[in-house]
């Protein structure tokens, strides 16, 4: 906690907010949000080349000065995810990959079996693997065991804005992880990001909460502050929760107004 910087594999970053680039109305808005978030790392995806597409997102991210974290979004099998990661390595000249292997198109929840298989294969192939995972502590440990550089548990389903539905599971992951833990999905607003950091997450990845907000640039700034506030609060050490009140004003030295057992109010 004393270290100011986020370290993942061989990279050191001062920003603990990773920006997902999906959902922004245009490249200009993305660039503005990226600056407001003070992000240093942004996700990108690969799809069939569209000859009509204007301008590359890479030029935009270059101009802002952020590094790219390619993802395997949309892959349902380990095989597809591995091929997509290899394409991403070619296209983006990075061996970093945000590994997503989805098991269901309504929940977009990870397929644990395919995810671990893909992670293992990619680690063996020299990738720096950051897997999107559920909040299952056992799965997180399995991913760490096969050599992932970080684990990225969800707070709630992608794009749901439901925040952190199971902070207890997330806490167990955090207590036991030997690699950085990045909250990867479910953030709806700044307080969700703050809670993730208060629980001890090393960083937060956020896309929809920013890109689909009414004012994405303002939300990018707010969530950045949420991440910073949560991190600082974590370091400061919150008070324990208790069921009964604990007076903050000392009782010692209270004047007595009770004469002969009859209570009198001051000023009457």
């Amino acid at each position, binding site marked *: 906690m004393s270290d100011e910087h986020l370290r993942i594999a061989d990279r050191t970053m001062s920003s603990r907010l990773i920006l*997902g*680039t*999906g*959902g*922004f109305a245009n490249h200009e808005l*993305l660039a503005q949000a990226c600056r407001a978030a003070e992000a240093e790392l942004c*996700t*990108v*995806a*690969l*799809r*069939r*080349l*569209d*000859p009509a*597409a204007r301008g*590359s*997102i*890479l*030029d935009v991210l270059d101009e802002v000065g952020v590094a*790219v*974290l390619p*993802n395997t*979004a949309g892959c349902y099998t380990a095989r597809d995810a591995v*091929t997509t990661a*290899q*394409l*991403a*390595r*070619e*296209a*983006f000249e990075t061996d970093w990959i*945000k590994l*997503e292997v989805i098991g269901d198109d309504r929940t977009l929840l990870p397929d644990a079996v395919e995810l671990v298989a893909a992670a293992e294969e990619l680690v063996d192939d020299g990738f720096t693997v950051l897997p999107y995972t559920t909040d299952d502590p056992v799965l997180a440990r399995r991913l760490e065991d096969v050599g992932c550089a970080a684990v990225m548990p969800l707070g709630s389903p992608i794009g749901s804005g439901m925040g952190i539905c199971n902070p207890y599971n997330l806490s167990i992951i955090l207590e036991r992880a030997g690699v950085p833990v990045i909250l990867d999905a479910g953030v709806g607003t700044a307080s969700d990001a703050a809670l993730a950091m208060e629980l001890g997450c090393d960083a937060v990845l956020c*896309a929809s909460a920013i890109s689909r907000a009414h004012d994405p640039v303002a939300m990018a700034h707010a969530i950045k502050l949420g991440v910073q506030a949560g991190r600082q609060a974590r370091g400061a050490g919150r008070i324990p929760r208790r069921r009964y009140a604990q007076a903050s004003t000392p009782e010692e030295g209270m004047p007595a107004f009770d004469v002969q057992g009859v209570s009198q109010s001051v000023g009457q």
Partner: protein
Amino acid sequence: MNITVNGEAREVEAGASVASVVEMLDVAPGARGVAVALDGEVVSRGRWAETQLSEGSMVEVVAAIQGG
């Protein structure tokens, strides 16, 4: 010969290379964020020119988009 590029049937000359398919899609030489898979295997950029296609080849040409 007949090949498939990004899911669409295309006809190309016998002996056409991966590079010629990429060119066919109006990709500027040296364009960033582009990668190619031939029959499910990634072909690195340095091998686009020398990699020849064959009848029925399935080519996927992908590029960077917003996502994640």
